[in-house]
């Protein structure tokens, strides 16, 4: 079957196997930020944004993205200018092996777009579908708190 959707700002019109997951598709397109973790929607390493909401790419079959806007963190920066969240993750030491990081960034970007109050509780809620097995959660939460408060202040003063 043929489907049409937006991927990282580009319109895609492609023939797909309806039994393939979005995770398999994205990795076959060399979007390797989307990690193949548990395959069960439990670890959050394959989180992407679909119409601004964080979702697990492993739980979504390709036909379900018809007409949707899909974003992976490849679209957040151009490799020279990192996204503010990425900069703060680096500065705060919130990355160790890095496997869970893209999923966390996708979840946090979704929180940012919700435009609700930035608080530690909201950040922890939005990260509770992302498992980390090395750095833990304290550093990512601190980095997110700094970065999102900063972005909010910048947004309000500009």
């Amino acid at each position, binding site marked *: 079957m043929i489907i049409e959707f937006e991927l990282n700002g580009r319109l895609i019109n492609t023939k797909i196997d*309806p039994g393939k997951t979005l995770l398999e598709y994205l990795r076959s397109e060399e979007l390797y930020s989307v990690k193949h973790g548990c395959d069960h929607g439990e670890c959050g390493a394959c989180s992407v944004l679909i119409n601004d909401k964080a979702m697990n790419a492993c739980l979504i079959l390709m036909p379900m993205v018809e007409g949707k806007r899909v974003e992976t963190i490849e679209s957040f920066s151009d490799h020279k200018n990192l996204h503010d969240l990425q900069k703060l993750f680096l500065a705060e030491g919130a990355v160790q092996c890095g496997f869970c990081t893209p999923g966390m960034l996708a979840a946090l970007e979704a929180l940012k777009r919700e435009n609700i109050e930035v608080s530690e509780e909201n950040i922890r809620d939005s990260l509770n579908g992302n498992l980390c097995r090395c750095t833990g959660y304290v550093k990512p939460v601190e980095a997110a708190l700094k970065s999102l408060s900063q972005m909010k202040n910048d947004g309000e003063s500009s």
Partner: protein
Amino acid sequence: MRYYSPASLKEFFKISSQCPNGQKTFLAGGTDLMPCYEQGTPLPDHLIDLKHLRDLHSISVTENTLIIGALTTIQDLHDHPLIQGEFVALYQATHEFAGAQIRHRGTIGGNICNASPAGDLLPPLYAFDAQLILTGPQAERHLPIHEFILGPGKTALLENEILTSISLNRKRLRSQFQKVGLRQSMAISVVNLACTWEEDEDGFSMLEIAAGAVAPTVLILNAFTRAYLENPKKLPKLLQLIDEAIAPIDDIRATANYRRMVLKNLIWAFLTK
């Protein structure tokens, strides 16, 4: 596999009646079904995605009822002010439900029709006596949730029938949800529990307790609450009535005995706080 995404109920019934029974599956958010496929359950010949049935996404409020479309996501339930205000136990269950990614996709209808003994929305829906509206090609019928869920994964849905909405009476009951899992997020409940009550200066005038993950379906602990309301001082002795009502099992998450202890402790703590 063939994939369908009907945009209206009429189109859904047409497609569904053309796909042979036993070879088709209905899918809402997919958060329970997809892990089954990835664990090796073969994909069905016909997969009917219900997510585009626009009419089933809304929450509507009348003076006496709250009607929730079956495809409302867990996140949308969580964010609805009336649920937060009048159906606290349901709100609390959505707050503790899995993780953000799952809450954005999973639906209330899916949680009900999946009929897991541990489904987190189920104890609050039992405790609020939710009425389910089931729609078939010819007719619509209403069933209370405890008559709809028959066992793990088993419901009273007929062929080509779907759950279209859930109706809750706005009785302004006080309520509370509690869950014990092996970690705070993304963990299937070892025990979950919803209580609804009314109270006056003498104490409870009405009390209902719905317990999950301690039997094949959620149980309303009627015998226990009735005896407790008659004589609250006898609480230590009455806990035995809970033991008699439930039938927990040992599984990878916990033993049956642990479930018994946790449930009794939660109820004890709730009633003596």
